[in-house]
């Protein structure tokens, strides 16, 4: 396998937009292309993540339109990927393999989503389509519901009184909003308190509004190329050191999902390929779609023992400046979660952290970073380890 690097990166501000899906992705893509000091016609293939364009904008089959919008020649293959909230990371993994294998030298990869105009009932319905259509959806399961049941299971399994766990979960939201307040591209750039979380309305017991990430519009894109070419394109190439992907069935097949086997397996692949362990990661962007989700992910990735992840919040171990800074971008919670773009936005943040470009939210001296993206109810998990 050849060494693969990320040259330029691009990301739109997350939040509500009047741009179309095509325009939104193109904004991020042009930034990534320009940042790589290449022209669109240097792109040999396009890998784009988009989850709900069919329902959001009546737009299926978006990939070819994007290739055309960017002015790519007719021989450029353009392919849409879908893996629920892990959509863009699935696309990145595929793009990585095409470059690593030697088939292409330079490709464009990323994702886009536009949800906010849909309204909560339809958005909730279409998000729920990422759970099992026969054995979960007819029960009225929603995504807050998936993680609400996880929180109850976690509290019961580890013998943590629910009010104690809820306060620690609230600290995830407080931390990520604090980080988001330092990110000019974040959907929410406002700090909150534990009381903000605990006084917000209940979405799915025990998750309250501020335990949940928002619906978001946004796009992010990366140019992937060979290590050799990247060194000529940009001053600070960031290398893909390891990558992993795991799969699982519905929650009822996973049973106790406080330990997500697909995530443990995916992280293990990525660590092994990179030749590093959890203790070597300087900064991590992980899938905090809900506050409890960050706690469980931090354990599955090996940063904390199972059952101990919530205590770390009280000690500030995951804050910027802590032992393992998690979600310095603000995470899905504050930065926003345009589901098809999220994995690329996580990679965008890690690339900029490793280049030392993150200003007030910079993790000092970060050399190795990791992303973690969860699709559906852990049915698709992708991890990426990046380094300089």
């Amino acid at each position, binding site marked *: 396998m050849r060494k693969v690097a990320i040259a330029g990166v691009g990301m739109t501000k997350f939040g509500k937009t009047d741009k179309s899906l095509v325009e939104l992705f193109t904004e991020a893509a042009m930034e990534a292309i320009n940042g790589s000091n290449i022209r669109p016609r240097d792109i040999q293939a396009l890998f784009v993540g988009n989850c709900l364009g069919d329902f959001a904008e009546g737009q299926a089959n978006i990939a070819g339109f994007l290739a055309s919008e960017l002015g790519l020649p007719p021989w450029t293959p353009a392919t849409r990927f879908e893996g629920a909230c892990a959509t863009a990371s699935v696309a990145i993994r595929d793009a990585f393999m095409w470059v690593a294998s030697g088939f292409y030298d330079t490709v464009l990869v990323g994702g886009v989503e536009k949800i906010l105009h849909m309204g*909560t*009932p*339809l958005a*909730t*319905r279409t998000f*729920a*389509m990422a759970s099992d*259509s*026969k*054995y*979960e*959806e*007819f*029960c*009225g*399961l*929603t995504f*807050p*519901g998936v993680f*609400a*049941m*996880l929180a*109850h*299971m976690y*509290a*019961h399994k580890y013998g943590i009184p*629910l009010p104690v766990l809820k306060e620690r979960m609230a600290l995830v939201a407080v931390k990520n909003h604090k980080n988001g307040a330092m990110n000019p591209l974040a959907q929410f750039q406002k700090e909150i308190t534990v009381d903000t979380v605990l006084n917000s*309305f*209940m*979405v*799915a*017991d*025990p*998750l309250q509004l501020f335990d949940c990430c928002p619906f978001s519009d946004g796009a992010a894109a990366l140019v992937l190329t060979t290590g050799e070419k990247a060194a000529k394109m940009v001053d600070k190439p960031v290398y893909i050191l390891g990558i992993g992907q795991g799969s699982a*069935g*519905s*929650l*009822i*097949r996973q*049973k*106790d999902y406080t330990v997500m086997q697909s995530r443990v397996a995916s992280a293990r692949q990525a660590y092994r390929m990179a030749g590093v362990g959890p203790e070597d990661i300087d900064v991590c962007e992980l899938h905090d779609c809900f506050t409890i989700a960050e706690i469980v992910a931090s354990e599955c990735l090996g940063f904390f023992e199972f059952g101990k992840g919530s205590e770390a919040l009280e000690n500030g171990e995951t804050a910027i400046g802590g032992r393992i800074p998690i979600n310095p971008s603000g995470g899905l919670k504050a930065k926003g979660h345009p589901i098809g773009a999220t994995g690329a936005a996580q990679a965008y943040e890690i690339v900029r952290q490793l280049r030392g470009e993150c200003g007030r939210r910079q993790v000092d001296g970060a050399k190795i970073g990791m992303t973690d993206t969860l699709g559906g109810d852990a049915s698709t998990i992708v991890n990426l380890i990046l380094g300089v």
Partner: protein
Amino acid sequence: MSFYKLTHRDYFEALKEGRLMGLKCRECGAYTAPPKVCCDGCGGTGVETVQLSGKGVIKTFTVIRVAPEGLEAPYIVAMAELEEGPWIMGNILDVDPDKAGMDLIGKKVAVDHKVLPPLNYTSGEGVAPVFKIIS
């Protein structure tokens, strides 16, 4: 010709008649429910259709207060571990959602069902398990 001993539609139709069906593996002895093409334990395809006891224990739950299009909140969603081992998801209808608390975990339940008329994007009628608290 089908590789399936029990399809989702067979499973739903049996639930409507009050029978919870599953698969038993001839190779490892594990039970699988709802059905798959293979054993959920070992992946073997030597499975046969069996009726399950329809009894289980609640493992976790939530009260959905923001419902998807087509449904009305609040309602309880729960997961139960069946006596034979598999977990299934269902609703709890005989508990007031505003009184649902952590003491639901560990409650013994019997599996009943409810029928959902076809909605947009459901590919026909749905049947969902309903957990009735027995102790």
